């Protein structure tokens, strides 16, 4: 069995094991959940560190494993990592570990909670590890359903039911659309397999006709896009995260949300590149909508959770732009942003959850001067906010700068200007949050706040901050792995284009469009 299968199986086995623990041993549930998350994290860390030394299997994937399942229609359990998902899995495991230490205020039906939590973790890691479209989708659903239940049962605030309702509708519709797109890919490629490696190779030889690419890509874009909160289909995110219990918000906003971006990179870029080019203007416009519009919305928020929710939507725009650039630099940047933002979103929601647990509200106007009272949490919040507005030294900056450079190569200049403009807007709301929550005078009613004093309470924040800093100070740890694996995808995208477009262009006596640059 591959190490990767152990990583996916550990939380799932722990979840099943949890069912055999009698009710009432809440301490034991916690230990099991934390232990499973810890083992998963250590294994993922090992996998990440030893990734360069390992031998490559089929399609350049490492830690590869395939178990035949329904051979007649080509469905197999097949997992493996390349440079793109090895970092995402490490990030997912780190967020899971942090989240397992951030379960404050879960004090009823604890066994159910930890069960769902572990299933969600297993699903997330499985989705990122799968090399089979069927399992890719299956694991995503496996992680998604517990999210809904966790919000519905352990959620907070008066809008909890509305939030559950909204997030469920949106994400189900998104997943369905993506499913239709995936099925269309399966059908139109004619490869008769769900195996991503074979599928990609098949398409390499026999590209999908341009007309069909133009239909399939929007299905994937909007399907996956809803899951990533693509503007203007993003409104589920702030509401949903506002109501979600802290660990669910950390896992979903941090990790699960990246599934859609991952799908676009893994499937859309090599298989329907012409579809992307045809829809490029729309794609860029929507992505700019994310970063500018949601940034402005974030500026108006009065509740810290909503501010973080909107800002996390805005950050997704950066990743979208990286993907739209269809350049090696830009997509490498997009993956780096996915990893960085995963850590950052988890950190921010964790901190907001801590404050909520302490006070019962994260209304910004009711906070103030907290840095004097809770220095540890305060410093972590300052770090989260600075990382969020793209200060160097944190992983986010490395991703953002790559996206900007990549976008400059192939997208119009105002996309670059808009994207960087977002970092100014980001700075406005991040610094306002610091000013209003942490700086200024400490009021009487806020002096009952307690700082995180034990190692267990500090632990989730430390894990995330340390990883953000490591990837920020030496981003090549991540980006060298990523760019190596993005390169074949980009090459395939360009080859496909040449293959489809060149013959017809030659026929018409035009110059072959070799340049990737697209002008609006």
């Amino acid at each position, binding site marked *: 069995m591959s190490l990767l299968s152990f990583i996916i199986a550990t939380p799932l086995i722990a979840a099943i094991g949890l069912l055999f623990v009698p009710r009432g041993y809440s301490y034991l549930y916690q230990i099991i959940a934390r232990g499973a998350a810890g083992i998963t994290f250590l294994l993922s860390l090992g996998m990440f560190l030893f990734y360069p030394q390992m031998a490559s299997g089929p399609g350049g994937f490492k830690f590869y494993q395939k178990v035949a399942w329904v051979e007649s229609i080509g469905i197999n359990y097949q997992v493996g990592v390349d440079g793109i998902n090895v970092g995402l899995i490490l990030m997912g495991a780190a967020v899971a570990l942090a989240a397992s230490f951030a379960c404050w205020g879960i004090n009823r039906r604890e066994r159910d909670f930890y069960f769902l939590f572990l299933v969600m973790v297993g699903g997330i890691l499985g989705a990122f590890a799968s090399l089979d479209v069927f399992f890719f989708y299956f694991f995503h659903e496996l992680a998604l359903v517990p999210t809904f239940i966790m919000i519905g049962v352990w959620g907070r605030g008066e809008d909890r039911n509305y939030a559950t309702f909204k997030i469920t509708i949106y994400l189900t519709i998104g997943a369905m659309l993506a499913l239709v797109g995936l099925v269309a890919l399966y059908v139109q490629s004619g490869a008769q397999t769900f195996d991503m490696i074979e599928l990609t190779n098949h398409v390499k030889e026999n590209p999908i006709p341009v007309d069909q690419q133009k239909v399939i890509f929007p299905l994937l874009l909007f399907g996956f896009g809803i899951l990533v909160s693509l503007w203007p289909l993003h*409104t589920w995110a702030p509401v949903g995260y506002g109501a979600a219990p802290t660990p669910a918000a950390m896992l979903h906003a941090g990790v699960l949300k990246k599934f859609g971006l991952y799908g676009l990179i893994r499937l859309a870029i090599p298989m329907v590149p012409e579809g992307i080019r045809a829809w490029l203007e729309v794609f860029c416009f929507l992505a700019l909508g994310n970063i500018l519009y949601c940034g402005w919305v974030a500026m108006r928020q009065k509740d810290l959770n909503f501010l973080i929710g909107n800002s996390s939507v805005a950050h997704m725009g950066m990743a979208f732009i990286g993907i739209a650039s269809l350049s090696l630099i830009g997509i490498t940047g997009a993956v780096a942003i996915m990893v960085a933002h995963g850590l950052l979103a988890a950190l921010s929601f964790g901190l907001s959850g801590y404050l909520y647990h302490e006070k019962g509200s994260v209304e910004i106007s009711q906070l103030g001067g907290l840095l004097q009272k809770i220095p540890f949490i305060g410093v972590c919040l300052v770090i989260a906010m600075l990382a969020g507005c793209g200060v160097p030294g944190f992983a986010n900056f490395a991703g953002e700068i*790559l996206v900007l450079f990549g976008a400059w*190569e192939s997208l119009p200049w105002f996309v670059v200007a808009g994207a960087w403009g977002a970092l100014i807007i980001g*700075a406005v709301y991040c610094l306002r949050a610091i000013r209003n929550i942490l700086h200024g005078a400490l009021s009487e009613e806020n002096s009952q706040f307690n700082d995180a004093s034990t190692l267990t309470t500090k632990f989730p924040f430390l894990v995330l901050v340390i990883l953000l800093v490591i990837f920020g100070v030496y981003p090549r740890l991540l980006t060298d792995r990523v760019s190596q694996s993005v390169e074949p995808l980009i090459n395939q995208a360009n080859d496909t284009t040449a293959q489809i477009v060149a013959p017809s262009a030659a026929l018409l006596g035009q110059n072959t469009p070799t340049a990737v640059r697209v002008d609006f």
Partner: protein
Amino acid sequence: MLTLAWIILFLPLLSALGIAFAAHKDQQLSAKISIGAIGSGFILSLILFINHLMTGSGSQEGAITWLQAAGLEIGFGVRIDSLSILMLLVVTGVGSLIHIYSQAYMQGDKSYSRYFGSLSLFTFSMLGIVLATDFVQMFIFWELVGVSSYLLIGFWFEKPSAADAAKKAFLSNRMGDFGFILGIIMIWGLAGSLNFTDLKEVFAANPEVLGTLATVAGLLVFCGAVGKSAQFPLHVWLPDAMEGPTPVSALIHAATMVAAGVYMLCRVYFVFSPDALTVISWIGGITALLAALMALQQDDIKRILAYSTLSQLGYMVMAVGVHAPAAAMFHLTTHAFFKALLFLGAGSVIYAVHHKQDIWQMGGLREKMPTTYWTFLLGTLALCGVFPLSGFFSKDAVLASAADTAHGGNGILFGIGVVVAALTTWYMLRLFFITFHGTARTKAAEDAKESPRVMSLPLIILAVASAIAGFLGIEGFASHGLGLEHHGAHAHATLAMAFSFLAVIFGASVAFALYWNAEADPIQRHLGGFSSILRNRFYIDEIYDFLILVTHETLSQIAAWMDRWVLSGLIVRGVHGGADLTGRALRMLQTGNIQTYAFLFVLGIAVIIYFVVGRNVL
């Protein structure tokens, strides 16, 4: 020698980390670590300097690749040439004195260790800019300098005004950086490299490499300097930044950080087209003039010095614009000495009168604080440009270049420069007379005592440096580092000298007539409305507040409204109403009923199988 440069760069970082993680409970130890780091940095910089003089070596650099993908390679390294060595000496030299001074000035503050930790972080970031080999590396440290400045301005973050000032400084810098990074990306896109040495070669081989975008790219890069060096129209943050502790104002907002913009312009001087330089020179000239006018009517001792800093930075930027980067570096260096001296002197006064900053609450401090008095006088005269103090030489170098019309100079700019020189003498002597002469106007001023030795010693050292820096050949050293011909602006030196002499005499007579033994500002009576315009800094802050309100805030209000009522209201509810059946089915989910989820989940899988099997069968 490169190893030395690496050590100089990383010592302050180690100090910051050491204070943050180990020494923060021990205040004295924190101060010692921080002082030790920058002090050793200064000694090592001296060794570098001497070695550089002895061997006469040109530039050396060593770098690692920090980030790379496809055609993008971002280096991280250290570069040693006369330009960076000069700046190293300024940053570590003036920095060391200010660190030592802080040890006494900040005594008793409950966050003493945090103060020294932040200072070390700042020093690290600043040295990163100085030693950078690569545009993006410079940008990274540029941002880190912004962050450490944010932390230090907001050092007393419980005070709303300090917290606001920190935020304002960071955001104004961000506005400038917006252009800076676009300029960097543009240059990379056209010239294909980010490394300064490579870029310089590319530009030397083909001056037209940027084509029609040359001026735009240059001006975008200049935006970075407009933010960091607080040039008009982004100058508004610097006076507010005086909310930080006074030694911080001396180090960051007078001697080093704000000079980073000028240093950057000199470092990448080769990218600027003649048109871009013309714009740069005008921005510098306008800043110099506006800030000098504003300084005339301020009452807060630190704010007067802040406006004076703005005005002098305008001089330096103007010097770059009139093709005289060496003169800019010269003025940067002398200004670092005398402005740090003036700020530390002001700190000494503020310390003595129990943290009052209004000059009208001081007076008659001459006998009570002799060391402060004499060093402050020397700093004032150096700033005014009185022979033979350092300011005289560097200001003349700037003015002479402005007068040199054959090499980018301009008669009007020269005129502005002379007027600013007169205004400088006027406001500085106003400050000086009101603070130190006349009679004590408050009880605190009456009881003032000279500051402790550890504070007055740096004053004396800086005073000596301000006095003699004009004779050290700094301009020639800098122009060697820039690889420029030391062109003949000195032909105009006599003209510049004559005019600036007249300007000083004029400014001094006005100040003497108005403020010698004055009890209140007579100018308000005479000028009335104009005086209050100056007092309110031409209402620029208010105009900005208004502009931000009507643009940014309105946009964000509209977006939030749309989000609430159109996107989530209409659309979502519309979808809800339209697909009522789906809605009903999904509404069951509110109960958290696991069977429902299982049902949906199976449904999803069924859809796949339907398609797959269906296709196989048909």
